């Protein structure tokens, strides 16, 4: 291999070009690091492997084979559990039936289903981050939107189209008001949005706790706080329910894709989106150019809140169908990480959320099927390492000795020479 590279300059040149520090390359390096670290973690936490390494010198070949096999199997199960199950694929190819198709599609459906609300929540946060506003109120805005949608969902009984539209509107309004509240405080009093949104989270969580035991929301007969279940007309239609009732993959995914395109348009083409961007980069210059910075701050946070509210609606109407006290849980914070992983780009957020979905779905499968029950947290470790690396591209560039992309290098040079 190495010989052929040295003897073929074209190959070498390709290799050189590949070492450019573009996003794909950084991501690839990040995943490699995560896989290596995860592998070490498996070795250290699996008694069978630690024992085997203890006697490394008596049977080195066996130790290495066992280790590679175990680690490989864990990763393979994460993949098979979240994307494609090889066995099911094989069966499906030989014998086409809805039942086999259902088994085949289950991992992917699980991943996308988990990712759907996360995509939308990540987009909401990205709107704020791109304009320099750190909206930490994801959880509160998700809950606000979810509660509003749930209320509409169990109170009314219209046709699905009307009902779902109504849920969306209610969720966006409540989420938007929660975000806009922080925006107004920031614009008029200078209160820092991080503090305000973080505190709003507590308020909203406690208000939810209170409402869940009030007759308005509480499911009759249940005292420990669970809302009424929303009417079937208020539930987002399942795509695959005709194949199997255990397959969950709802219409919300279409909303998510629309939201990705919408956000993309908003950032690239809309005047408001551009103004938000300009204010985020340099508020003083924006103001000098006649942009209303106050209005822009309020609009940004309200819009971010609205999108997060929508995400809450999608969780309620698409997945949970009711509100439990743990609603919104950690996914308001996961969304922050997803936005970070996606570098606040709409498609970045989309794939970031799917990656999170895959790790969650695949991780559980892995824990269940590996002989030594490798813990689910392995998936979370991989997730964390990838996010960490993507958030610190400078580290990756240094570790792998990547070259700066040509264009940026030229810009830096000009900057240094000026």
């Amino acid at each position: 291999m190495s010989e052929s590279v040295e003897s073929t300059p074209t190959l070498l040149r390709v290799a050189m070009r590949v070492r450019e520090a573009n996003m794909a390359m950084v991501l690839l390096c990040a995943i490699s690091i995560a896989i290596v670290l995860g592998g070490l973690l498996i070795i250290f936490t699996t008694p069978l492997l630690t024992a085997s390494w203890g006697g490394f010198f008596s049977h080195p070949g066996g130790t290495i084979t066992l280790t590679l096999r175990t680690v490989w199997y864990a990763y393979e199960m994460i993949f098979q559990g979240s994307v494609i199950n090889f066995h099911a694929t094989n069966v499906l190819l030989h014998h086409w039936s809805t039942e086999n198709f259902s088994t085949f599609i289950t991992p992917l459906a699980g991943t996308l289903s988990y990712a759907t609300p996360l995509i939308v929540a990540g987009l909401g946060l990205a709107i704020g981050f791109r304009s320099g506003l750190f909206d930490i109120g994801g959880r509160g805005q998700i809950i606000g939107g979810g509660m509003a949608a749930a209320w509409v969902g169990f109170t009314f009984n219209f046709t699905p189209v009307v009902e779902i539209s109504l849920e969306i509107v209610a969720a966006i309004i409540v989420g938007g008001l929660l975000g806009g509240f922080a925006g107004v405080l920031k614009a008029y009093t200078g209160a820092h949005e991080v503090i305000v949104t973080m505190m709003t989270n507590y308020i909203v969580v406690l208000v939810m706790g209170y409402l869940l035991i009030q007759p308005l929301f509480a499911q009759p007969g249940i005292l420990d706080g669970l809302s009424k279940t929303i009417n079937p007309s208020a539930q987002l239609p399942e795509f695959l329910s005709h194949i199997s009732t255990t397959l969950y993959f709802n219409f919300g995914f279409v909303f998510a894709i629309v939201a990705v395109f919408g956000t993309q348009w908003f950032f690239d083409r809309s005047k408001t989106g551009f103004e938000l961007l300009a204010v985020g980069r340099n508020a003083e210059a924006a103001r000098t150019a006649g942009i209303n910075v106050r209005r822009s701050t309020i609009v940004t946070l309200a819009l971010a809140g609205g999108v997060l509210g929508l995400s809450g609606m999608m969780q309620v109407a698409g997945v949970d169908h009711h509100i439990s006290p743990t609603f919104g849980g950690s996914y308001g914070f996961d969304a922050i990480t997803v936005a970070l992983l996606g570098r606040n780009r709409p498609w970045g957020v989309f794939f970031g959320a799917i990656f999170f979905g895959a790790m969650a779905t695949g991780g559980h499968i892995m824990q269940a099927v590996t002989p030594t029950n490798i813990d689910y947290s392995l998936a979370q470790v991989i997730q964390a390492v990838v996010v960490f690396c993507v958030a610190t591209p400078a580290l990756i560039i240094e570790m792998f000795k990547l070259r700066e992309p040509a264009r940026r290098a030229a810009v830096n040079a000009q900057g240094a020479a000026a």
Partner: protein
Amino acid sequence: MRLELRGITKSFGSLVANHNVSLTVEPGEIHCLLGENGAGKSTLMNVLYGMLTPDSGEILIDGEPVTIRDPKDAVARGIGMVHQHFMLIPVFSVTENVILGDEPVRPWPFVDYRKAVTMITELSQRYNFDVDPHATIENLPIGTQQRVEILKALSHHADLLVLDEPTAVLTPQEADALIMILRSLKEMGKSIIFITHKLREVLEIADVITVLRLGEVVGSTTPAETNEEDLATMMVGRSVNLVVDKKPAAPGDVVLEVRDLLVEEDRGLTAVKSVSFDVHAGEILAIAGVQGNGQTELVEALTGLRGVTSGSVILKGYDGNLAGAAVRDILHAGIGHVPEDRQRHGLVLSLPVEDNLVLDQLSDPRYHGRFGRKLRAIRENARTQITDFDIRTQGPELEAGSLSGGNQQKVVIARELSRELRVLICSQPTRGLDVGSIEYMHRQIVANRDANVAVIIVSSELDEVLALGDRIAVMYDGKIQGIVPPTTSREDIGLMMAGAGNAATSEEQA
């Protein structure tokens, strides 16, 4: 210290910032490094200060080849750097700033302030600095802050001082004081590298002048052997017109009428004290004055960035009082604004050039349609402007921050001039620009005057005020001391800037 740079070459990718640059600074010499923005002066100094590693070439101190790895190394070898943007902590005292990073301790961890104060008082007396060691930085005038920077370098026993465009931020008086200080430092045997592009200063203080162009040394000379025109030619590579070429003004009707304007600054003190003036179409009203006498607040009030306590601003043909109106309305009424600090107020540096060129015209139907921003029209506009205004950039999609100062200013002026203007307000239009760009800006300003726009320029450069103004209003302490013709002597205007009213030469205010 005798410093010798031999064959320094430094490139960034395909861009050669320094090519085979050699220069020698003798002990007790003031060596001026002259060159346009982007000529490689800062790169060279960053190499000397250990912030960049040269690709080739060597540095010799007192004949010994040395390697300077980082700024700490440079300081240890007696090189002191005074950056254009001060590296001082505003809320700390002079003493605290000077000793920061190298605090005298007795016993650890206590800082020996008394010793520090004594040291600073001694230094300050020895070099005639007149700095109070207990004063807080943010309360000191810019000129004094700069002296603190020099003091800091001297406290580290610097034998060679590098000053990067030290006069760019100073008033004429402060600049004179600095020049005195540099002369006395020189007498004590310190070597000084003085980076600038102000030709007058160079001729005044330099012992040796080295000119850089496009990363190479074009030549070395002394003030006795050269003059401003020759230096400018060396810098730019072609002959430059240093005198602003303009016909006598043909003023038309009054376009802008400012009456009894009262404006407060951030702390609530009155900064503009009942100012009244008129600006006619086709004339340039130059507002002169030492920085901090209310000019900034006046411009901010005229452009809507700052609220107005009382008074009126009437634009002919616009219904109502513009004082206190929203920025957007003022811009739409036909007022163009080239702000004082282009990087802070004029541009969003991290956005592309093309977007910066339409920053205040987002709703313009040319750039905004039914489906949002017209990206193609915006790109098209950028291409035209880049050609028309000769903006040197590798492309409209590049960040504005990647341009040199002069080209950044061209982006701002191009944007303002692409609207239908009735009044153009330029604040410090050529601050920090090189000779070629200054010439360009001046021509643009005069061309607008000739196109019957009412132009207001605010400048603390007396040369600029005298060269451009058709009438000169001198501001002092928030008031207009008088409005005089440009034939008034520098001395008289200088006196007015210092607060001496000059009613004799003052025109009657209309």
